């Protein structure tokens, strides 16, 4: 009889796909934040 290990498989894929999604989100958030900073700094440079 095949052991019932489906729950562990689901947990494993949640960690793998969730971890990858989290990393992608962190990249997007950091990129947008840097773009905002850059725009603010460029505005400040133009004023000076």
């Amino acid at each position, binding site marked *: 009889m095949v052991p019932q290990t489906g729950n*562990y498989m689901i947990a*494993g894929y949640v960690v793998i796909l969730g*971890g990858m999604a989290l990393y992608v989100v962190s990249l997007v958030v950091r*990129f947008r934040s*840097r773009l905002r900073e*850059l725009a603010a700094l460029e505005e400040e440079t133009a004023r000076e």
Partner: protein
Amino acid sequence: MKSTPTALKVLDALSVLLLVAALGLVFGYAPTERTMGLVQKVFYFHVSANWVGMLGFLVAAVAGGLYLAKGSPKWDVVEVAAVEIGLAFSLIGIVSGSIWARPIWNTWWTWDPRLVTVTVMELIYIAYFMLRSGIEDPDRRARYAAVYAIVGFLSVPLTFLSIRMYRSIHPVVITSTKAELSPRMFQTFMFSLFTFTVVFAALLWHRVRLGQLTAQVERLRLKLTD
């Protein structure tokens, strides 16, 4: 910073398509292993995640070497990007491996040579960021980090070979002569490895762009404070 290049958008779309196809193969094509049951299916993405981790550290070591040879800051940006991705995927590999181990080894964790070496490898690359954050001068930081990325890479082959060199309970699925997998499992495994390699390329490109943008922001900030 220019808008996302078309080639990167294509790479992103390809990554998503390949991931969906790989999941289709894992759940619809590869057979269920009889002694482990469904949890064996974690293997395909667990090994692929660890592969990306090691690939990231390899790219970082090469970028470190190129930085030392040429002195161009772009290699420092590539190096940081590769280490960060390597760390993230190695962590995913460690946690997913622990979940696989619970029903198979009857424990979440054991001090097996592979588990020890992969943990040491992870800690070495966490320390890489600690080293960087401790040095203010950008040139010195990049130079020390490059040397560290090259020396730290020694932990990668040690981790890879640990299950072949020492007595370990960790499975050795691929040996130099054969693969302990059925043809469908082997095809799914190879496809997953290819998929994760493409995902790595896409993520590395994005992370390098982020690094370049951060450098641009820092330069402008310095100009304003001068």
